[in-house]
């Protein structure tokens, strides 16, 4: 059963071309050249109740605009959104009671006082009953391990601790859907892991999550469904499994060489593994398909032919994924 | 010599910055000017309603206030931002960056934060003064010289005030309202001294010599200053020295504790 249904969603902005210099500015004062930007361009999708859906895309692709419309903070230019029977922007006051939202870069906590006081404020705003509030706060404090942290002033908390408290703040009223916009941005590995663990846990209890991110790892570890957006258009909408099989199980091996590399020699050994030149001729990136080749064997074979100083293994970058999806 | 070079280099940068954001700069100076020439309005309204400060006509009182604006303008250009900059550094815990520079910390803060915008305030004062002087006339050359002397002394008092406020902000962390204390005290310097009772007069000449900011120079220009007024030069110099000493002491304390 789908909890969110989006049909033919469009969001376009009109901006004005602004000249620089006095004359141009004066001219634009009287006659402005309009430019229409389509941030979201005819997107439709459905999200199942109780799932975790990742919305992926490079910066400026329209992810944030989409999630803002889903939250009711923005009116769509055209098209329709139905979340639990509400039209978010139209029924905003009633609707936001039922949802939670965490915006990675926009804190809802109050800077100078402990998070627990901010929680108490939200208790009143959302009209949470005393008993329910106590139960949920106890539960979540344990889950996030913030039992002590939440009594310290927000300004002294680390970014990770603050983020955990943002999550609690957004979920105290027991929302059925929680929107996460870049929730792990700027966090260290341990904090990221904790956040992901808790999201999975809450999800098992029935909460639906929608998250936007450009961190592929977030999606890999959390999402069951993936929607990829680029230039305002939906380019992929399927399960994570299918995204993986589309892309293949690939890693990028990045090498820093001691000597400038000899492309011919590399080719002869690597065969059909794509070689991408790096930013200078002492750097190369190799794309390894793990379904075809064991990573250990691959590194072993490298050892003999190139003299490298440093090596790292990464996920495919977002841009590569987008181009790959297009070419499919 | 090195210090003078650095100072002028910094002032030049400040002007260049102001020129780069011309519209903001003009708007800013204009607002500074308007909001600071407001207080003569009260004087004008008092005289317009047929009342007066005993022994002073309107133009004479306005002369005091215009000179006050000029001194404030100059001292603000020189070091009004010291208070804000120190306050920010202490709150953010970034005062170390100042200590890293190979010059005296006080000197560095003063020169790096030349406040061009206060020129609006100074110019406003000048315009007002010219208008007032046209009506009051001025005394002899000697009077003008004593005016200049007292005017400089007044600027010294204001600079001393700024430094003391900045020094307080080392201890009273993050209190953006500290300058209000200083504004309120200096109000005593904006009106003819004779309207205040004897104790207040003595306090505002000797302890915190605010009377020297506007009142004494104006009286000098009108040729009605007593010789004793020049004794007030001593507290002015002492006041500035006290400001410098206090600020430097706070820096040393800060170094000791390390923030």
């Amino acid at each position, binding site marked *: 059963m789908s909890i969110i249904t989006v049909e033919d969603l469009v969001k376009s902005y009109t901006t004005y071309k602004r000249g620089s210099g006095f004359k141009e500015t004066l001219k634009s004062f009287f006659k402005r050249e309009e430019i229409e930007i389509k941030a979201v361009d005819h997107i439709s999708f459905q999200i199942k109740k109780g799932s975790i859906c990742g919305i992926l895309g490079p910066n400026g692709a329209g992810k944030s605009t989409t999630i803002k419309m889903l939250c009711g903070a*923005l009116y769509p230019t055209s098209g329709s959104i139905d979340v639990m029977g509400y039209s978010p922007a139209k029924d905003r006051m009633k609707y936001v009671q039922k949802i939670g939202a965490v915006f990675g870069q926009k804190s809802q906590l109050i800077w100078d006082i402990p998070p627990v006081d901010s929680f108490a404020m939200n208790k009143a*705003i959302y009209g949470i009953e005393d008993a329910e509030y106590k139960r949920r706060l106890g539960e979540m404090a344990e889950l996030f391990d913030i039992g002590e942290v939440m009594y310290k002033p927000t300004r002294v908390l680390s970014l990770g601790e603050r983020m955990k408290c943002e999550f609690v703040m957004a979920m105290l009223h027991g929302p059925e859907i929680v929107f996460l916009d870049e929730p792990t941005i700027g966090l260290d590995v341990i904090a990221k892991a904790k956040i992901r663990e808790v999201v999975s846990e809450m999800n098992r209890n029935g909460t639906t999550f929608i998250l936007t991110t450009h961190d592929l790892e977030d999606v890999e570890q959390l999402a069951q469904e993936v929607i990829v957006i680029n230039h305002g258009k939906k380019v992929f909408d399927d399960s994570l499994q299918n995204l993986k099989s589309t892309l293949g199980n690939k890693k990028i091996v990045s090498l820093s060489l001691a000597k400038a590399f000899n492309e011919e020699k590399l080719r002869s050994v690597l065969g059909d593994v794509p070689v991408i030149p790096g930013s200078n001729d002492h750097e190369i990136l190799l794309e390894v398909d793990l379904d075809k080749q064991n990573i250990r064997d691959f590194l072993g074979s490298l050892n003999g032919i190139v003299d490298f100083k440093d090596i790292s293994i990464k996920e495919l970058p977002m841009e590569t994924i987008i181009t790959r999806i297009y070419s499919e | 010599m090195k210090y003078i070079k650095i100072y002028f280099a910094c002032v030049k940068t400040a002007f260049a910055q102001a020129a780069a954001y011309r519209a903001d700069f003009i708007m800013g100076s204009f607002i500074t000017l308007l909001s600071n020439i407001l207080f003569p309005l009260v004087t004008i309204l008092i005289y317009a309603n047929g009342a007066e400060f005993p022994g002073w006509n309107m133009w004479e009182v306005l002369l005091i206030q215009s000179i006050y604006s000029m001194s404030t303008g100059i001292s603000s250009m020189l070091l009004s931002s010291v208070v804000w900059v120190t306050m920010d550094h202490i709150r953010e815990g970034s005062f170390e960056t100042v200590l890293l520079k190979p010059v005296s910390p006080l000197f560095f803060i003063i020169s790096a934060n030349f406040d061009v915008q206060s020129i609006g305030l100074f110019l406003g004062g000048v315009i007002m003064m010219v208008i007032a002087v046209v009506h009051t006339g001025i005394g002899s050359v000697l009077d003008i010289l004593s005016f200049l002397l007292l005017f400089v002394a007044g600027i010294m008092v204001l600079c001393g005030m700024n430094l003391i406020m900045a020094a307080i902000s080392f201890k009273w962390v993050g209190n953006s309202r500290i300058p209000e204390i200083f504004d309120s005290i200096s*109000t005593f310097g904006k009106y003819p001294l004779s309207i205040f009772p004897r104790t207040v007069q003595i306090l505002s000449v000797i302890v915190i010599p605010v009377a020297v900011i506007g009142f004494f120079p104006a009286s000098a220009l009108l040729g009605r200053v007593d010789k004793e007024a020049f004794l007030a030069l001593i507290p002015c110099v002492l006041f500035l020295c006290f400001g410098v000493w206090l600020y430097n002491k706070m820096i040393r304390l800060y170094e000791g504790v390390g923030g």
Partner: protein
Amino acid sequence: MKKLKHKFEECKAVAFVTYKEWSAYRTHSLVSVFVGPVYFIVQYFIWTAVYGDAGSLAGLELSETIRYFGASALIGYLTMDFADWNLQMLIRTGKFLTFTLRPMHHRFFALSQKLGHRVLGFFFEFLPCLLIFMLLFKVEILPDRMGWTFVSVALAFLMNFYVNYCLGMTAFFLVKANGIRVVYQLFAQIFSGALIPLNFFPKVLQSVMIFLPFQYTNYIPAMVWTGSESIGVLKLNVPQAVLAQAFATILMFVLSEVLYRCAMKRFTAVGA
């Protein structure tokens, strides 16, 4: 009824949190306890000198004028806010978004914040200054007509809030909204009556002021406080003046509502 109770709970919670938030800075209010009395002393000497032997100036007696300045300062402590600055900041940084995601009108949120902030002002600015005026300076500062004064100050509290909230909302429409705020404050300084009772202004200007918001935030409540029977150019008595205030406040509320709707239309369309 239940809705009203919920509103009350919301207001209480937000006010309490704001109170707590600003408590960290309560020593800053001590500046007011120094500055307020100092300005009052200056006013006292200025006006004592100016009045000289004159019985009354601009229709006010010396004692009335002195009381006026005391009342004006005290009302300032009870009604000041920076809803304008705060809202402009929220809009500029995009943080306003987080408020559209909560089931509470932001204006009500901001008003509750102001309430909490002013409770702090009541204890750390208003009360100490009142006591200094009464006990140290021996000025008869307490209002004659307590009930009317209370209503009048409450209206000034709301009026000032709605005006500032409207100024804050200009940031939805303009990039350089800060300039508008500064210019408004400049005018407010002159025409609110905090600098000098409006009686001293030329009659024409006083008449124009009736149609502008400034005097309703300070001059009129301060005159009501002193118990004057002839307030402003219209020579209103106390109940009439309070009625005029109520009218102005309602008008301002309506304006803020209209502006808020326009702003929301724009915000939800552009997402500023």
